């Protein structure tokens, strides 16, 4: 197989793998798990021709560890998993955040907790993506809604991870991962690909965790003459252990600020439907495409509904959601869980706008009737 040209029928997991390869990913470490395994299979087949390496690790703890290691050696790296594996990855996700290692973690969500329903979709890892690893931290997470978007968001995930020197999560789900749609891969040379900033000082003057003015330290690779000391212990700009309270405060503050001060650069949303509506749907991923369908169905019934689709989820787009809440009669949050992102919507609800949940927990793509019922409830 070689890179598919022209308009193709492709499943979301394959589009993810090709997005990664086109973004410059040259190392994949993973552990097989439904419904994400096709990403690993494409990487196993395709990466060698790009000079890359695929390795199947002993578990998901080792998988994320290996991609962190390979990224520090200079290779754009990623892994893919689903809920049970994502749980195992939480430990070293924190290491990646703390050591500021660019890498991408793809979570093709399925029904949980525990083994749940391995072949069926959910969107119930949303808060785990935000808070799953211990300790204060920031995270970037993106949520694709179509196969074509899976491709582009995977590229964006790599770009953001390199730009901010941090792990980026793609919150897919079984529907997006395993649905086949028509897709066209662009000419790779037409893509904007971001590479990590390399040191611009001599090796003697290099401190691996001395930040640039945007809070992100230029990054040497293992093997460079610029020596890298990457530590999961509290560290100063040298990278070596430092146990002073002010060092801890400065590090945690910088790690937060380097992302949250640039929230507007990260946030990506789509407004769909009429500008003004009686009810605004807020949704993401597979649920949001059902919402688009519902917008049309509601219109047939004479109900004006629009949609705010969150393409990026973390950091949460506080300002945009607050504005949406302020100019609608009611909000319905549609998600395939028992209510996760709705908590964030309520958090920024400065106008006390009524907020309702359309909860899809049937182990299937959320039914349009569930969303319509929530809309009718909101209109009562």
């Amino acid at each position: 197989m070689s890179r598919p040209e022209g308009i193709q029928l492709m499943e979301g997991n394959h589009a993810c793998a090709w997005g990664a390869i086109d973004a410059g990913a040259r190392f994949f470490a993973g552990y097989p798990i439904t419904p994400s395994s096709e990403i690993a299979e494409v990487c196993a087949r395709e990466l060698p021709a790009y000079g890359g390496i695929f390795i199947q690790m002993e578990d998901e703890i080792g998988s994320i560890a290996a991609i962190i290691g390979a990224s520090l050696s200079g290779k754009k790296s990623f892994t893919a998993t689903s809920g049970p594996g994502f749980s195992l990855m939480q430990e070293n996700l924190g290491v990646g955040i703390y050591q500021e290692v660019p890498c991408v973690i793809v979570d093709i969500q399925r029904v949980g907790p525990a083994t749940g329903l391995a072949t069926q979709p959910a969107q119930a890892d949303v808060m785990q993506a935000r808070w799953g690893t211990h300790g204060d931290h920031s995270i970037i997470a993106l949520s694709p809604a179509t196969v074509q978007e899976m491709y582009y968001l995977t590229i964006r995930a790599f770009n953001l991870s390199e730009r901010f020197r941090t792990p980026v999560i793609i919150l897919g789900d079984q529907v997006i991962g395993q649905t086949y749609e028509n897709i066209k891969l662009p000419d790779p040379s037409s893509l904007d690909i971001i590479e990590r900033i390399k040191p611009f000082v001599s090796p003697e003057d290099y401190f691996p965790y001395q930040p640039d003015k945007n809070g992100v330290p230029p990054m040497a690779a293992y093997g460079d003459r610029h020596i890298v000391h990457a530590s999961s212990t509290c560290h100063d700009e040298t990278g070596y252990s430092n146990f002073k309270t002010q060092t801890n405060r400065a590090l945690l503050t910088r790690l937060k600020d380097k992302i949250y001060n640039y929230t507007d650069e990260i946030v990506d949303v789509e407004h769909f439907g009429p500008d003004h509506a009686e009810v605004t749907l807020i949704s993401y991923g597979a649920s949001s495409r059902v919402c688009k369908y519902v917008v049309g169905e509601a219109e047939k019934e004479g109900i004006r509904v629009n949609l705010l689709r969150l393409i990026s989820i973390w950091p949460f787009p506080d300002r945009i959601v607050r504005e949406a809440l302020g100019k609608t009669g009611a909000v319905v949050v549609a998600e395939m869980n028992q209510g996760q992102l709705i908590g964030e919507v309520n958090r920024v609800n400065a106008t006390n706008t009524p907020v309702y949940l359309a909860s899809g927990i049937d182990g299937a793509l959320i039914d349009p009737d569930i969303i319509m019922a929530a809309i009718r409830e909101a209109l009562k």
Partner: protein
Amino acid sequence: MKNNWQVVLAGEGGQGLILAGRILSEAAIIDGNNVSLTSSYGIAARGGYSEAQVVISEQELYYPKCVSPDLILALTREAYNRYIDFVNNDCLVIYDSKEIANPMGRNELGYDFKEALLTLGNLKVINSLFLGIILKNREIVSRESMISALKKNMPPKILDINLEAFNYGMEM
């Protein structure tokens, strides 16, 4: 010509339903349409209920599943029972007459797949056979596009027998 279609291919694992869904989808793409192909499957690697849903549209596709199917292929009793009470009268149900002995008598057509496959001398070409039967009854995609998609997806060694099965289905 109608360009929006919702097709359900239902049966059990091993009947090539997902592959048939791919071939139908690729044919629709060749015709210039948007396509969404989803599949349901269990955790077993072989057997069990299996289905593919193909939604074809000229417009951007939002809901990737079949809301009101235009055509259902039911190769097992379970597949037939799952849908027969829910489809509207415009929906054509094509079923395996050996599997479903007492059909509901709606807008439906029974075919003896087993006999056709024995005539063809190959039990593994069932998906090409039913794609032919589907296309004979509903012009979902053009015949040329379907043949192109078959050629793309079938290994050269078994392409001829699959094309034969497809053409046979078109005549049944």
